[in-house]
């Protein structure tokens, strides 16, 4: 069953057709990768999914509900979490505080005037946040300034923050961009583990074919704003159209 259903999305920026008749269906509890050369419209599509951009036409259904016209925070509360290309965390806050915020957002919703009781009294939230930090191997950094951490740690913190909300769908925007090989492999292992442990659907935009083929169960190839093919990784690898449009040059380069 599809948890995310994108139908006939069109988006124009002035004279540029960024997305043209995009149809995409992501099955529940699958890992779905969206690949394509630069300028293929991957980021535009992602921004439509999280409510940052409103498409000109088409529909986006998440779990039977339309997400179009909703604000990013409302879409997030529906169960879609997003990991950014460069980790977006609260740099001025400690790691623990970074972790607490999504836990509060999960418990209290998009706004709660919880202004009198101290944070330390909210045992349930604190325990959950500490548990997440332990699970993600970040507990040693608990009281560090999050801006001072390494990029790999920031990435793990961001993923942990997204997972703390128990999302149904996790969107990752090139999560390993700019990472060293070892960090990339750690991230792949982390995502695999998340997939095993949780009922979660993962949609991932990625340049790195190593990451894509290690994780994805289905792959959609986007080119010039339109889906070219959608298939299993094995079929994609051998697909002549894909090879021509995209993979060929990448593999040669590699």
């Amino acid at each position: 069953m599809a948890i995310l259903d994108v139908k006939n999305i069109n988006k124009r920026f002035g004279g540029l057709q960024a997305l043209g008749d995009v149809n995409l269906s992501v099955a529940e509890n699958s890992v779905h990768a969206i690949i394509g050369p630069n300028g293929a419209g991957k980021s535009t599509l992602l921004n439509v999914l999280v409510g940052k951009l409103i498409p000109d036409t088409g529909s986006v259904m998440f779990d039977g509900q339309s997400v179009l016209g909703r604000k990013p925070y409302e879409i997030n509360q529906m169960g879609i979490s997003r990991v950014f290309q460069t980790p977006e965390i609260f740099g001025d806050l400690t790691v623990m505080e970074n972790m607490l915020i999504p836990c509060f957002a999960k418990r209290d919703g998009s706004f709660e005037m919880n202004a009198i009781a101290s944070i330390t009294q909210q045992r349930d939230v604190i325990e959950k946040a500490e548990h997440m930090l332990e699970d993600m191997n970040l507990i040693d950094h608990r009281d560090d300034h999050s801006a001072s951490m390494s990029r790999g740690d920031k990435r793990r913190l961001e993923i942990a923050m997204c997972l703390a909300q128990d999302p149904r769908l996790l969107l990752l925007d090139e999560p390993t961009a700019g990472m060293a090989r070892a960090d990339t492999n750690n991230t792949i292992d982390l995502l695999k583990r998340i997939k095993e442990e949780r009922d979660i659907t993962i949609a991932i935009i990625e340049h790195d074919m190593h990451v894509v083929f290690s994780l994805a169960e289905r792959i959609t190839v986007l080119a010039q704003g339109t889906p070219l093919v959608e298939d299993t990784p094995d079929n994609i690898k051998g697909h002549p159209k894909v090879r021509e449009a995209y993979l060929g040059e990448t593999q040669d380069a590699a």
Partner: protein
Amino acid sequence: MFGLNAKDTRLFFIVIALVAFAPFLMNPFPTDSAMAQFNAGYPDLMQRFVIFGIFAIGFNILFGLTGYLSFGHAAFLGAGSYAAVWMLKLLTINVIPAIMISVIVAGVFALLIGFISLRRSGIYFSILTLAFAQMAFALAASVLTPITGGETGLQTALSDPRILDGARDAGGNIPAPGLWGMEMRDSAEWVVSGWQFTFNVGYYLAGLCMILAFYLSIRIFRSPFGMMLRAVKSNQQRMNYTGLNTRPYTLAAFVISGMYAGLAGGLMAAMDPLAGAERMQWTASGEVVLMTILGGAGTLIGPVLGAGFIKYFENIFSKINDNVLHQWFAFMPDGIEDFLVTIVHPFVGKGWHLTLGLMFMAVVIFLPGGLVEGGQRIARLFGRKKKAADKETDASKTPAE
């Protein structure tokens, strides 16, 4: 204690002690000594310390936590003042209803202005708040004269109705604002061998309000709500993608800080039942910005320190004239004495604002964390020396063992 952790409780008690013993602390010099001009323990000034303390604490909840720099907060203080004076005119000379209504009116006013201004951020937000405050100021000084008294200001009069307790006091005069028989201007004096201490009713009422305001700000700082406000300052994008709606958070902070400003304005009117449009002018908004930054934005105690610091030096510096300077430097040879007086002259007396501007620049350039950061640095300096000394003693012990 009081739902605070040990460190905050200590800070809270320090503030209580400072407020309670201010009449002593501010008057450390005997009345007829040469140093008496540095005494600040008279009611009018002490009232200003705590009232501006409240104003700055409130401003800090908005600016210190969310980073939204409002250049129009004086509008709420002015609105609170007007509301309080009207209460003193219409209902009763008792200050409690006046103070309560000032908080409510300022809160409603802040809700309106905040709802519109917070649609933008950064400098656009600053300009919007500035524009609203300047509008309020211009209208209060002109068209709204029936409500605000225009340029002469609004004050209590013999012709006021004062439904609950009548227009005149026993002597047939305009009654002074009071609290169940005590007047705000009542003071008790205590003279001890050359020292003179003044305990003023109005000061202690305002001081009590500041203690409550400070306590509430600690609770807000330590609450999930306070953390969310800091998160707004840090990364709004992540806030949105974590399912949090930033608008109501910033609006709540704006309204709370507007209510603090209203409380300060109401207390001002309670101490002296007079409200003028100049309280709303942008220079007054700028002053609370200075106080908060100078003390340390985003810290608990900083705004209180900043307010006290500015109000103290404003008062003391502006009293120093050339005669005083000549007294100070009298021990120098004549030529040098005159030279020193000439050098110092532009910075004191009427030139106090020059000193303030220079100090403020120095703080922004060298101490972005304000006086609080300065204090921490000094403490760390001593702490490190102490630790180093401890280590040395440890090292010297080891071989002996």
